[in-house]
């Protein structure tokens, strides 16, 4: 073999060359490391929760400790895994390549956003190891502002800091997409992943500041005894909920839009077909981002808001489901009469479709005002959002990770183990969260660790499923790491995919392209070439 080609991985080796890098690809890899660590931490809390819930009595953890477990599970998974995962890891790595650019618009700010993320994570971890926080990841007042004795302020500060990471990433991506597209790369020739990341950036920029001010106001209320949410002064605790959910609902679209973008790429490639209804899928990303800001009070139907307002929010929640449905139909239509190539990324993508469908439909169930009165704060809601967040967002992330892994590392992973892991995760997931729908419908409240005996069977099934799920994720970690040492060379385009990122070597050059690409074709021209694959 000739001398090793220059890549972004091997051209500099020192620790400083990583920690002071301005290369979006290295920053993406660094995000992968921290997010994986966060996933483990969040998973640890989940393990303790499911262990406790295997028996009806509160025998493993005290009441307060259990409160801390579900709180910290939520905080870590929401803010340090789901929000950054696809945008900061895959987006950072792939976006400039997809656009034919040398880097993002503001490389130094990109590095700063990683440091801000790490500092926020450290603050939050510190809060957790020095006593934890027990308010629920939703931090509702007045418990969080007046009564809780746990590390609310420290966690709030950690969340506040991390929010800036999200804002800076979104800002960077938006400017990059607006101003750094390759010649000929018009908006409607963009891969749908770019549309998804753009819509996500919009949400990050508009929504994150509101949670920042909410958490800041909460911290000041707690620390300095200001009284914005204090009922004893005439304040409104529901105001906190309005401010909190104005961000936290659009936040779930930050979590799902980029994985949906990855799914579009994977399904097109492994159906060997252009995405059905490209412009509908592109506009649906924007529609989800915009409509997503109009529905937040569906989390507050039973908090004492006006019933008229609740009706409006319920109606709008049905409206926001429409663009998601459009995407689901279009992905399915893409697969119809496509030449399905069943590689690991496609298995993750198909699992995504099934699980996201269930999650989405159950979202419609919870959106019905009358029904929600009964299932709010039960396991039905917990199951619904885990189907979307884990069955949807995490599966979508894995689909994208398995799709772009060869580009990021230059290596192929074990296809057999990847398929095994995908099946194990799918089975484990369904066993974990399927029973929770039934539990919720039967009335088991969420955030309780003591429950009536008749719920035990379903809970044991759920906990058993969780152990299978954990094994599945571990298998993924093992073969991906193994691929770094033993994986075969991927080559520039192992999937024969379209997209500018596949026209350059794997791993890419430090400056991405030898010559500036010029785009003359549409996004998914799979039909124009015939390939034979093994």
């Amino acid at each position: 073999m000739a001398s090793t080609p220059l890549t972004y991985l091997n051209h500099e080796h020192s620790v400083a060359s990583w920690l002071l890098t301005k290369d979006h690809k290295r920053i993406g890899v660094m995000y992968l490391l921290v997010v994986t660590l966060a996933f483990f931490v969040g998973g640890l809390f989940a393990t303790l929760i499911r262990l406790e819930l295997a028996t009806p009595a509160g025998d493993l953890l005290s009441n307060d400790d259990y409160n801390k477990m579900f709180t910290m599970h939520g905080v870590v998974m929401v803010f340090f895994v789901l929000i950054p995962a696809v945008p900061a890891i895959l987006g950072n790595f792939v976006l400039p390549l997809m656009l034919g650019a040398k880097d993002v618009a503001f490389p130094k700010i990109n590095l700063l956003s990683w440091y801000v993320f790490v500092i926020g994570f450290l603050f939050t971890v510190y809060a957790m190891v020095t006593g934890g926080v027990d308010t629920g990841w939703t931090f509702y007042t007045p418990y969080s502002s007046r009564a809780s004795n746990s590390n609310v302020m420290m966690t709030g500060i950690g969340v506040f800091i991390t929010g800036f990471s999200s804002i800076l990433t979104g800002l960077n991506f938006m400017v990059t997409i607006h101003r750094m597209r390759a010649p000929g790369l018009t908006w409607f020739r963009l891969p749908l992943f770019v549309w998804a990341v753009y819509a996500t950036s919009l949400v990050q920029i508009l929504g994150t500041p509101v949670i920042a001010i909410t958490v800041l106001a909460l911290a000041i209320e707690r620390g300095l005894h200001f009284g914005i949410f204090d009922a004893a002064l005439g304040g409104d605790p529901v105001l906190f909920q309005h401010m909190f959910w104005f961000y936290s609902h659009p936040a779930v679209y930050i979590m799902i839009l980029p994985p949906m973008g990855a799914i579009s790429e994977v399904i097109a490639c492994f159906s060997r077909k252009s995405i059905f209804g490209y412009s509908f899928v592109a506009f649906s990303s924007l529609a989800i981002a915009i409509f997503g800001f109009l529905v937040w009070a569906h989390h507050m139907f039973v908090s004492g808001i006006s019933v008229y307002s609740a009706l409006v929010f319920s109606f709008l929640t049905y409206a926001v489901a429409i663009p998601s449905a459009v995407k689901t139909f279009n992905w399915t239509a893409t697969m119809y009469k496509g030449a399905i190539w069943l590689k690991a990324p496609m298995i993750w993508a198909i699992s995504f479709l099934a699980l996201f469908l269930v999650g989405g439909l159950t979202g419609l169930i919870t959106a019905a005002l009358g029904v929600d009165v009964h299932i709010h704060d039960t396991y039905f809601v917990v199951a619904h959002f885990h189907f979307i967040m884990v069955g949807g967002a995490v599966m979508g992330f894995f689909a994208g990770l398995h799709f772009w892994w060869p580009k990021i590392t230059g290596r192929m992973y074990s296809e057999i183990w990847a398929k095994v892991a995908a099946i194990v995760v799918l089975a484990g997931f369904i066993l974990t969260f399927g029973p929770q729908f039934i539990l919720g419908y039967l009335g088991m409240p969420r955030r309780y660790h003591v429950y009536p005996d008749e719920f035990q069977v379903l809970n044991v099934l759920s906990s058993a499923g969780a152990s299978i799920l954990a094994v599945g994720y571990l298998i993924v970690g093992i073969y991906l790491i193994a691929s770094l040492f033993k994986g075969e060379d991927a080559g520039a385009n192992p999937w024969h995919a379209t997209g500018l990122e596949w026209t350059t070597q794997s791993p890419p050059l430090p400056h991405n392209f030898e010559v500036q690409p010029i785009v003359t074709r549409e996004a998914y021209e799979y039909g124009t070439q015939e390939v034979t694959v093994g």
Partner: protein
Amino acid sequence: MGDAIAVRGGHGDAHAHHHPDLQHHFDTLEQQHEAATLGMWLFLITEVLFFGGLFLAYMLYRVWYPVAWAEASRELDIVLGAFNTAVLIGSSLTMALAVRAAQTGKQRATVVWILLTMALGFVFLVVKYFEYKEKFEHHHVPGPNFVFAGPEAGPAQIYFSLYFLMTGLHATHMIIGFFIMAVIAWMAHKKRFTPEWYTPVEITGLYWHFVDIVWIFLFPLLYLVDRAGHFA
């Protein structure tokens, strides 16, 4: 899909390619300038929503407690508030003129206008200090030492919580602006800016104007509630 046909961009405009201020991932100075201003505008959008949360709280409670709002607002000194408004608007003018000086290559004028902006901002903060001091002496700082005569004491404390949060957050942004302006003034003093590249001055200007806009809203909302005695 990509057909890498020709080398373009970086080697096209020889002057721009070798311009010392052109960053390597951009093709032209113009692209770089547009990216920077777009980025700063996006950041300012986040600031609109950041302050927006407090405006929401303000609005909710003003609707609920018009009497408390009227009484508490009258505790603020309208003369100082109006004076500060004029000072800050003046600093926006000097900032706009600083950007213009940088655009037209007038290095010394840029420094002078920026320093004037900082001076006016400093006056604003000094006045603010005296206002806060007076609030402290009257026990209008929310918390355990809060005192307010009459039945509206509870909501009045909410008013003052918002007053300090909003003006405090605003003042924090001004202080950050000072540091940024100090750096920009130094760079201007070192003749770093040219009519081809004055981007840092422009985006600093955008930031400072935003700070002014926030105050344009804070002044009537905090100082001018029911000065005509409609509610109380």
